[in-house]
């Protein structure tokens, strides 16, 4: 049995989904508000499981964007793999009028439906009375009171889903009354006698599930009948609201109309143009302080664990290539992934908390105001903010922007937003070059620099948008319709699920790439042209007495010489002249090149290179990097100037193969990904050069 959850955005649909499915969830790739297509299983009675599909949030089946289209597509296509046996329409009980629009549309599709009135706790506070029994009898469908966050009403919902639900008994919207010719013609093209389905398909510009014959038939009838879909949709909406107004009059009673609840009072501060921004900046400071301060000891524990494991491997495994691969390639690679779990978990815990409380919508509102002068569309705000997690879903979420130019600008600047893959790179460089000091006795300086990097990325996105706006001359017509959900206490279970999903994805998705690259790098760093490596080592051996080094120092020098003459060393040295003006040596150069696959590869690469080029396997990558000496200046390799130059490079360069792939798919060609790669990486090179020369 398949059950689809449908509802307006911010009605608590995801909370209900989490409550029904627990951890039995699979995340797919529907783009949009929650970006993902989520499916899961729910035990509705012993021996009977239902598949639950969490469809993207939408206000109407008259789709305007790809994510809304998915909902319409699934519900109007009995051949679709997700076509449900029943639909649960999750409605915000305190906003029933608006939520009933979608309900009446689903109802007219003739699929068995349950109306779940969520967030009923707000009803009591606002003193709104809804006659559930009356509503249920009127529509002849089950109507359930729900508080999904607290789990109230879930059992009742499961009980209802157990029973055989009946298809709706009448049609609310009679499409034939508006245009009977259109209905007759489209019913014929689609081979159906289902007025509302045919109406939706005929008036939608989107539908991708039609056969080529159906598509050409619909297009022909649109031109034959000189169809005006926009006018038809408006007519449908107006008629439905007229009907809904009657329902509200009949079944809803509001006894305290002047009531101003706590959410409205809080919004007066949180969305204030000065206080709102200051509070947001304060929250950001808190988050980045926490990312640096709270994660220290678990990170040190993980680092120490892997450093010990490498040492154990060197001592106890039979000497040879496998032991070296494990100690210097795979284990540092795995450590380079796992060590960032605490920080990723803390960052996403905060993001999930902000989303759960409803504060994120206020951030979108504040950002909208901030972004407008830079030529960014109101609808660009959501993709840009979701770019703080990852640019890929963010680029996909730009599908909600109707204007192509505005969408293109958003796609082109989104990768400047600081994604979670930059976090490991920033953390390690900041820890190396920024002193562990406190400002005013309580502000961690490293945390402040991390926050500055996030703001730098955001600022660059705004400036690049302004430049693109001038070049592409986009007409700004887009606007953002944003609903402010009521503030809620966060549900820790939902926060936990978000953290679990993000960490799992980081470890298993990014982790596999990092380990694969670490293995390849180790082999490239361990082996080289046999004669060149042997010659270099022989030369060093011949100078052993004049070098006056201890045995341990001599072994370390030997490892370094061998690395310099390995395949990786030769390659690194060949690119060194190009990166020297930015303050980088060939080792950083290799990490830089490897990071073009994915940024987070940086740490694993450095770990492998330093492990091969040194004999002290018990050191962590940070310790290796800290003790690296620039042989020309005899100063530490990672000075403040080199650190800042690297931070700027990673903030700006387009180092993510997967993002380029998604831009290629979304813009349907190579032109824009190539432009994006070139301008971002060129900017990174130039600004890193300037910053290095300034701070040198």
């Amino acid at each position, binding site marked *: 049995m398949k059950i689809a959850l449908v509802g307006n955005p911010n009605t608590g649909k995801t909370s209900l989904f989490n409550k029904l499915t627990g951890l039995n969830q*699979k*995340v*797919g*790739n529907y783009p949009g508000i929650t*970006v*993902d297509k989520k499916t899961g299983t729910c035990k509705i009675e012993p021996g009977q499981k239902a598949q639950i599909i969490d469809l993207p949030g939408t206000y109407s089946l008259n789709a305007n964007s790809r994510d809304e289209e998915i909902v319409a597509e699934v519900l109007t296509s009995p051949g679709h793999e997700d076509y449900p046996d029943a639909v649960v329409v999750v409605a915000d009980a305190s906003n029933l009028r608006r939520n009933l629009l979608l309900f009446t549309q689903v109802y007219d599709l003739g699929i068995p439906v349950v109306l779940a009135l969520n967030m009923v706790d707000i009803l009591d506070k606002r003193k709104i009375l809804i006659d559930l029994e009356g509503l249920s009898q009127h529509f002849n469908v089950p109507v359930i009171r729900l508080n999904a966050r607290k789990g109230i009403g879930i059992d009742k919902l499961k009980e209802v889903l157990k029973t055989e639900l009946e298809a709706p008994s009448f049609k609310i919207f009679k499409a034939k009354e508006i245009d009977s010719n259109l209905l007759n013609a489209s019913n014929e093209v689609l081979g159906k006698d289902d007025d509302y389905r045919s109406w939706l398909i005929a008036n939608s510009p989107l539908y991708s599930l039609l056969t080529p014959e159906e598509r050409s038939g619909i297009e022909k009838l649109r031109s034959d009948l000189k169809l005006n879909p926009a006018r038809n949709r408006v007519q449908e909406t107006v008629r439905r609201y007229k009907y809904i107004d009657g329902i509200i009059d009949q079944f809803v009673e509001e006894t305290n109309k002047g009531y101003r609840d706590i959410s409205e009072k809080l919004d007066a501060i949180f969305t204030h143009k000065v206080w709102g921004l200051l509070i947001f900046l304060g929250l950001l400071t808190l988050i980045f302080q926490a990312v640096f301060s709270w994660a220290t000891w678990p990170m040190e524990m993980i680092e120490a664990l892997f450093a010990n494991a490498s040492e154990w491997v060197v001592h106890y495994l*039979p000497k*040879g*290539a*496998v*032991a070296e*691969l494990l100690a210097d390639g795979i284990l540092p690679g795995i450590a380079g992934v796992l060590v960032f779990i605490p920080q*990723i978990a803390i960052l996403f815990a905060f993001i999930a908390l902000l989303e759960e409380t409803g504060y994120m919508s206020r951030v979108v509102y504040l950002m909208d105001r901030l972004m407008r002068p830079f030529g960014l569309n109101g609808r660009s705000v959501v993709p840009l903010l979701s770019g703080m*997690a*990852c*640019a*890929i*879903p963010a680029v996909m979420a730009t599908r909600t922007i109707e204007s192509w130019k505005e969408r293109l600008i958003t796609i082109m600047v989104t990768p400047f937003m600081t*994604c*979670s*893959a930059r976090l490991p790179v920033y953390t390690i460089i900041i820890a190396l070059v920024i002193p562990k000091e406190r400002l005013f006795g309580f502000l961690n300086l490293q945390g402040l620099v991390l926050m500055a990097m996030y703001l730098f990325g955001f600022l660059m996105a705004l400036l690049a948008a302004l430049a693109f706006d001038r070049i592409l001359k986009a007409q700004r017509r887009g606007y953002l319709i944003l609903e402010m959900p009521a503030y809620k206490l966060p549900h820790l279970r939902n926060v936990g699920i*978000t953290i679990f*999903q*993000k960490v*799992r*994805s*980081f*470890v298993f*998705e*990014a982790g*596999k*790439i990092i*380990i*694969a*690259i670490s*293995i*390849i790098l180790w*082999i490239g760093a361990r082996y080289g042209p046999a004669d060149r490596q042997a010659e270099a080592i022989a030369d060093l051996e011949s100078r052993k007495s004049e070098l006056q080094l201890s045995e341990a120092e001599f072994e370390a020098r030997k490892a370094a010489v061998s690395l310099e003459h390995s395949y990786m060393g030769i390659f690194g040295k060949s690119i060194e002249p190009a990166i020297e003006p930015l303050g980088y040596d060939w080792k950083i150069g290799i990490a830089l090149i490897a990071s073009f*696959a*994915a940024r*987070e590869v940086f740490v694993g690469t450095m770990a492998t290179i330093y492990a091969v080029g040194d004999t002290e396997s018990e050191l962590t990558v940070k310790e290796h990097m800290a003790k690296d000496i620039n042989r020309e200046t005899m100063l530490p390799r990672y000075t403040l100037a080199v650190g800042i130059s690297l931070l700027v490079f990673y903030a700006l360069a387009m180092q*993510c*193969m*997967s*993002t380029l*792939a*998604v831009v*290629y*798919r979304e813009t349907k060609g190579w032109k824009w990904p190539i432009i994006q790669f070139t301008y971002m990486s060129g900017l990174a090179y130039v600004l890193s050069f300037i910053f290095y020369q300034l701070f040198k």
Partner: protein
Amino acid sequence: MMSILGNMNWQDLVVVIALLASLTYLFRRFRISFSKEGDCSAGCGCASSEIKKNLEKR
């Protein structure tokens, strides 16, 4: 070819297998990324295991 393999000890062989496995994995990963349906390999939590499975089935 046989003489190269003959000169290898088991440890070298493991390294060669690891290298081939890594290269194959990366190649497949990026081929999927640039394929029509695509997939994400970043650590954002949006990666679609279902799409991967579908592509593998094909």
